[in-house]
Structure formats: structure tokens, C-alpha cells
């Protein structure tokens, strides 16, 4: 992982945190419900992710912010979950994500940017997601230039 990313929370979520995440997911999804599976979030190091084959999102401990300085590390629960909804919506429109590097990075950038336009987000969340998109592109550019030390 890069210097920008993967500095989010790794500690298992408490019941209260989990409830907050479910509430955030409700507000993000609105009428367009996508299933949020929460049973992994009580495990240390679990990761939030969209699973195409099942059209569900797994909630992980990293839904909560961590201690890093990057946008990805510090963004709120709402901002963290918004790209997962974007993945799901893009998938439902027939878009299939690239699975290999470095194209995966561009997809993450595009998804963060797409998520930043969600109506429920505050201005700080919007800014964090756009900064996150920029960071993904920065890593992609480094990969394109064969600057492996950034990856």
C-alpha cells in the first residue's frame, strides 16, 4: 500500500460504532437499498468492500477513520461508505471494474470522485473524497512511470 492509503482504523468496531455505520448506510442508500453485511466488522483488521458476485457490501473495521494524515485515512464513515455505494451503482449500470493493477487505481479514483457528488455529504466529506481521488491518481501515475517505491 501507499504512503497515502491504508491508515484507517483496524480495531474491531463496537456495537455503537456498528449501529452508526448502518445509519450512515441507510442515509447513503435511500430507496436504493444495497445489502450491508456487518458480521465481519467486529473483527480487527476487517475491510469494507463491495462484492460484485453477491451485490453486497461488507462492512469492515476500516469504515472508521484512522490516524494517518491522508484524506483516505481521515475521511468520515459517511465518506468512506459512499464509494462502496458508487461501486454498487456502477456495477448495476453494467460497468465491470478492472481487477488488475494499475487500472484498479484509476477505478478507485473514479469511484471516489463519483461518490463525492452524493447529496448527503457535507463539504468536508466532498473535499476528502476528491483529495482521495487525486491520491489514487498520483499512485497510478507513479506506477505508469515505473516508480515502484510509491506502491
Amino acid at each position: 500500500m501507499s504512503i497515502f492509503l491504508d491508515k484507517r482504523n483496524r480495531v474491531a468496531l463496537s456495537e455503537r460504532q456498528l449501529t452508526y455505520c448502518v445509519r450512515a448506510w441507510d442515509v447513503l442508500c435511500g430507496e436504493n437499498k444495497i445489502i450491508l453485511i456487518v458480521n465481519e466488522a467486529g473483527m480487527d483488521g476487517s475491510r469494507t468492500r463491495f462484492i460484485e458476485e453477491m451485490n453486497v457490501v461488507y462492512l469492515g473495521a476500516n469504515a472508521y477513520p484512522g490516524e494517518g494524515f491522508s484524506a483516505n485515512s481521515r475521511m468520515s464513515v459517511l465518506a468512506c461508505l459512499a464509494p462502496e455505494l458508487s461501486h454498487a451503482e456502477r456495477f448495476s449500470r453494467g460497468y465491470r471494474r478492472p481487477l488488475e493493477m494499475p487500472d484498479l487505481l484509476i477505478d478507485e479514483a473514479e469511484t471516489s470522485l463519483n461518490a463525492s457528488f452524493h447529496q448527503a455529504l457535507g463539504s468536508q466529506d466532498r473535499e476528502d473524497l476528491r483529495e482521495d481521488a487525486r491520491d489514487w491518481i498520483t499512485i497510478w501515475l507513479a506506477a505508469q512511470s515505473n516508480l515502484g517505491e510509491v506502491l
Partner: protein
Amino acid sequence: MNIEPSGVLLVGLCDIQTEKCTAKAPASVTAVWALPARRQINVCSPCLNEMVRSGDWQIEGSRLRRRADVAVFDKSGNLQLVVEAKYIGPDEATLNRAVQIRRNLLVHSGIPDSPFFLIVFPDHFYLWKKGLPDTYDRQADYSVDTEIFFKSFGEEWRNSFEKMSGVEFEKLVSEWIKDLSNANDTSTIPDWARASGLYEAIRNGSVITEAAV
């Protein structure tokens, strides 16, 4: 009205409570500020979406989620028609209002730029055919009285038409579009649907309600 989302989540009642409201009893809502006075409004996600789709609220830096009340895809799976059904009173249901709604949806990416776009009000509907050059504020190409509904569904609908909910209205519109798309007796196809090319475009197509487009 300009709105600024706070990103704050809470459990409470929605202050807006449209028909699609999910927080008429305590549920997940988010707080937004009405500008410039920064008055707090607690709103559930479907109501937030409805207020922005209708153009009553504007949120700087956001886009609408792309959704259609009814969408029709042709046999090849290409989107041909997007329908927005609005159950609003006759005073509000004007051509200007229809133009404003279309503009809002296009500007904020709430709908794709499909070959046909239809806004249905209880007493009129307005059809746009994609043209070049096009502008957001362009007047509708066809304006049709919704008497056509009663011809399709029978006079018994006339009374319930005035009492139905917005959701029921959307269902009725969807059924009517399905009838139009699947019509076997082509003599029943209205002139405007033929002349505009709409009928050919959606004939035997797939009609999807509440579609992500």
C-alpha cells in the same frame, strides 16, 4: 432554496415527509442547513432526493443520483425513454414547471440524455425528443392532455385519478407506458407517439420502474 448538508447523522423524524419518506417514525436522518439563515432541517434520504430532483433544493457540489421513475429500453438494451411522473396540482403543473424539472435533472446529471424524455403531470404530459442543437431550457416538442389515460384505462379511473397518491400515479404511468410499448393493435397508437418516433423506439421494449439509468 440552497441547502448545505452537514454530514451529521441522527435518529429522528424527517421534517419534509414526502410520500417516499422513510422517517415518519424515528429513523435514520441527516441534518442539512437551509441557507442563508442556516436553519437546521432533518431529512431522510428519499426526501432529500425528492427535494433536489424537483428543483426545490439546490446543493452546491452535488449531483443527482441517476434514476428514472420509468425507463424504457429497446430490444437491444439501449435506453430510449426516461419518464418523470409528478403528481402535482394543476396550478403548478405547467409547461414552465416541466421545462424547469427537465433542466434541473439534466444539469445535475439526474437523468441521461436519452432519445426521449417524458414528464407526466396529472392533467398534461410533455415529451422531448432529443435534437441537435439542444438546450436545457428548450420547450417540449409535444404537449398532450392526459385524457389519453382515460381512453386507455377506462372512465372508472377518472375519479380515482384525483384521489390517488404519487406512488399510485407513478404505477399508473408505468402501466400506460407498458401498454404503449406492447400494443398489438397499432390503430390505438396516438398520433403524437407515431409522429415523434417514440412508438417505434420503445416498441416491445423493456419497461423498468424506479430504474437506475
